[in-house]
């Protein structure tokens, strides 16, 4: 049982970095790239995903005994889809502008591999508490990544962050950042950065360990 080895807290924070859904697990790439052309969209999408993920993790983990395995996927999907529809309508009612921006990608949260993945890999095997913790962690990690990408793209692409101009009016916008290629390339470079930092970290740890050993012997 996964939870046996970790505390609920660990389950949560692992999503932020060690098992980050985007940088490590490479999941949910589509919304990640499609709606991160501005920080605000990124966050909106992130939050929507957050709600859906936590919600369905809660349901799935609490209903797991009653879901027969042959149809579990279908049932998960129904649950997820329900939450997504809810989000869809709520956003449409509350913030139509943003809803227009995110367009088709709100319904597409259903297909976000991350969500289904967590149900199957975690929620369906763990207690409600752990499931929720895990969901929060993962969703937060996703949100984090979305925000990172979104802000970079908005800053370079329009010289703004959350619509606030940063460099004065005659900043030359990097149009590509808002176009599809910009999404791919920027995320690629972000990942590169992520790998590099992780590597540094490991190298550092290794050095320390080395030092320890040499002291010991």
């Amino acid at each position: 049982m996964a939870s046996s080895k970790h505390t609920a807290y660990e389950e949560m924070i692992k999503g932020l970095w060690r098992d980050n859904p985007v940088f490590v697990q490479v999941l949910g790439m589509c919304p990640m790239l499609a709606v991160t052309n501005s920080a605000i969209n990124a966050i909106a999408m992130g939050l929507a995903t957050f709600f859906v993920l936590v919600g369905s993790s809660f349901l799935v983990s609490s209903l797991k005994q009653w879901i027969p395995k042959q149809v579990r996927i279908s049932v998960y999907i129904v649950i997820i889809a329900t939450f997504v529809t809810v989000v869809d309508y709520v956003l449409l009612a509350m913030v139509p502008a943003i809803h227009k921006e995110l367009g088709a990608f709100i319904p597409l949260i259903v297909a976000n591999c991350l969500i289904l993945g967590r149900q199957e890999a975690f929620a369906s095997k763990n207690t409600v508490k752990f499931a929720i913790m895990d969901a929060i962690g993962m969703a937060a990690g996703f949100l984090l990544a979305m925000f990172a990408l979104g802000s970079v793209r908005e800053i370079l692409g329009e010289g703004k962050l959350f619509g606030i101009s940063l460099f004065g009016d005659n900043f030359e916008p990097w149009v590509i950042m808002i176009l599809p290629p910009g999404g791919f390339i920027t995320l690629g470079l972000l990942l590169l950065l992520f790998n590099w930092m992780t590597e540094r970290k490991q190298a550092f740890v290794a050095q320390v360990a080395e030092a320890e050993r040499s002291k010991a012997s």
Partner: protein
Amino acid sequence: MNDLVWIFISALLVNNFVLAYFLGLCPFLGVSGKLETSFRLGLATTFVLIITALCSWFLNTYVLTHAPYLRLISFIVVIASTVQFIEMAIKKLSPALFQSLGIFLPLITTNCAILGLAIFATNRGYGLGEGLIFALGAGAGFTLAMVLMAGMREEAEIGNVPALVRGTAFNLIISGILSMAFMGFAGLFSST
């Protein structure tokens, strides 16, 4: 420019599902390592897309007129179940076909391209014919992107890509360059 042709070209090149719409990236990034696999995945996806076009058209015309708010959920349920059914059928009837194509079906049903197609087709109020062409174009476009990507990745695999870059970062960046190249098709047949 004839509408059907435009729909096809647009889905195939100008607004390629993967490179311009960001749909189906998980398989695109994950499974494009082997040429052979990519090609077959492409075919399977095209197949499912066509199924999808049919399902969504059916739902739109016969079911959702009464309850538009069930669009999303009914799409996903119907498509998922149909494909799952087809998968079982293939597995039983032709193990060979299952190994070559069927095996991809679960991967495909849970990806955005499928649902995306359904939703776009509905938003644009495509009829059956347009829907099918759209699906065909999208599938072809997906396959094209997959195959090109796989070719490049196999080449880079035996090349000397720096260890730090290898993996998803690299795949994303070359996808970026590819999508930059595809920008060349922008405005195709719309300027004249």
